[in-house]
């Protein structure tokens, strides 16, 4: 709601300050506008249980990269109400997208749409022949919209069915990872793979000084504090509807796992943005203590 109307903001706002007040559980967005007007929004937040999942795009057997526009033009042929889509590697290096029909019973009733893309429509294709994964189309459309708006190519890393698929976007200022669960091969009778590397982050210590200036300095230099003040909140709500866009840290999450109260299969949780700015600027304020290094070690 704060950033709803981009054209209006571009006209009136000169500077925007985003500040976290963990002790008060508030995210403060301050818009410094023309004519000396300052609009302050205090957004309440609730901290969620943190799952520290590990995923490694290097471990994915297959990957492909295409301009967002090509993929967006492809998904337009599928009905808006379709829940899942299957991406497959076919003969001749071609890539297919096919609507996924959940029940056998629906096969006789539902319309099935299939689209084939030639390998030269992609910037890079390195896929296991005949490999195939099924994931949520709605979320895929979401990241495609963002990718198209940013005019960035989208890379898809995937492995065997059941293992997560990772969609990544990169530009000099930002790196985005979307991790989606994929459906298990129906022929396989094994349980979903145990969540690899899921662990709970230790309760963070509370030495973040509620200090506007030092926080601003920290933001500008690209080093980030790990301190979240408030104790871990109760179980994840079932849906995280909005990506946490201003989150400077790179936290990964995985869908399934043995954790009780795990969110339902096939729902995506969060979109992660990491700042890849080098921390070669002025040294961070002494109150900042980095508890977890950026996993990509960008520096």
């Amino acid at each position, binding site marked *: 709601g704060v950033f709803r109307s981009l054209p209006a903001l571009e006209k009136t706002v000169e500077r925007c300050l985003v500040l976290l007040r963990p002790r008060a559980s508030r995210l403060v967005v301050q818009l410094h506008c023309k004519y000396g007007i300052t609009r302050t929004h205090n957004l309440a937040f609730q901290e969620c249980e943190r799952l520290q999942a590990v995923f490694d795009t290097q471990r994915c057997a297959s990957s492909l990269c295409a301009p967002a526009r090509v993929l967006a033009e492809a998904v337009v042929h599928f009905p808006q109400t379709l829940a899942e889509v299957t991406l497959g590697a076919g003969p001749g290096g071609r890539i297919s997208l096919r609507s996924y029909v959940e029940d056998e019973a629906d*096969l*006789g009733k539902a*319309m099935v749409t299939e689209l*084939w893309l*030639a390998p030269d429509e992609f910037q890079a294709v390195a896929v296991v022949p005949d490999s195939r994964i099924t994931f949520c189309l709605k979320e895929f459309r979401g990241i495609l919209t963002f990718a198209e708006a940013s005019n960035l190519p989208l890379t898809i890393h995937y492995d065997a069915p059941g293992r997560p698929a990772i969609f990544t976007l990169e530009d000099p200022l930002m790196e985005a990872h979307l991790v989606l669960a994929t459906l298990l091969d129906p022929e396989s009778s094994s349980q979903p793979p145990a969540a690899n590397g899921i662990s709970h982050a230790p309760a963070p210590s509370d030495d973040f000084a509620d200090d506007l200036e030092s926080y601003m300095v920290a933001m500008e230099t690209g080093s980030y504090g790990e301190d979240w003040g408030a104790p871990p909140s109760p179980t994840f709500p079932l849906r995280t509807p909005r990506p946490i866009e201003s989150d400077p840290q790179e936290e990964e999450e995985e869908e399934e796992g043995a954790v009780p109260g795990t969110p339902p299969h096939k729902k995506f949780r969060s979109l992660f943005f990491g700042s890849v700015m080098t921390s070669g600027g002025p040294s961070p304020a002494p109150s900042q203590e980095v508890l977890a290094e950026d996993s990509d070690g960008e520096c």
Partner: protein
Amino acid sequence: MWCELCQGNFFDEFQMEGVAADHNEIYLELTPENLSRALKTAQSAKAVKIKLTNKHCPCLKVSVELPSLSSSSRIVTHDIPVRVIPRRLWNDFREPSVPDFDVSIYLPALKTMKSVVERMKNLSHSIVIEANLNGEMNLKIETDLVSVTTHFKNLGNPPWASEDGCQSSAQDRDLESMVEARIDIKKLQQLLAGQQVNPTKALCNIISKRIVHFILLHEDVSLQYFIPALA
């Protein structure tokens, strides 16, 4: 609704084998929304192929070849499930015969009719269509608060060749006397809203208080709508 298209006008290639030599027809039942969605994909297509297939179940396979920047085209296929109607039920789907109508009259400009009906739709659920053999037609609505009538004149009446005198009821009629039927206004509005292009000929036949039968002729397509009268 009944619509007839001539194969040659729409398809470059057409191959079909019906059930038997003397019954060279195939009757399929499908959800129109599926076909409409599939054809939407084809709006900027290089080529479209429609095939009847039977893998897990009978399907109409619509293959669309789309232009793409790469060397080979993009191919999208839509498998639309259909139900093949057995021969014993074919009689249910025969072209309805033109009923023994009381009055037949050419319609006014569809655009005009559409805007009149759209406004009337806000006031009433039903509309009365009345016409006579003197080229006059009225569209009437009546509610507790208001009654509105739109008059059309000089529309002309189509000359139906009398066969075995079956149209005699129409010919005996007094030219000025009106024949009417009350129908659901939404159905009429949908019919009119669906017309994208002005038809070459548009007329309606009214059977007093029973049915209004609309016939719209485009160059290579004929559309017939039957709207039953409300009680």
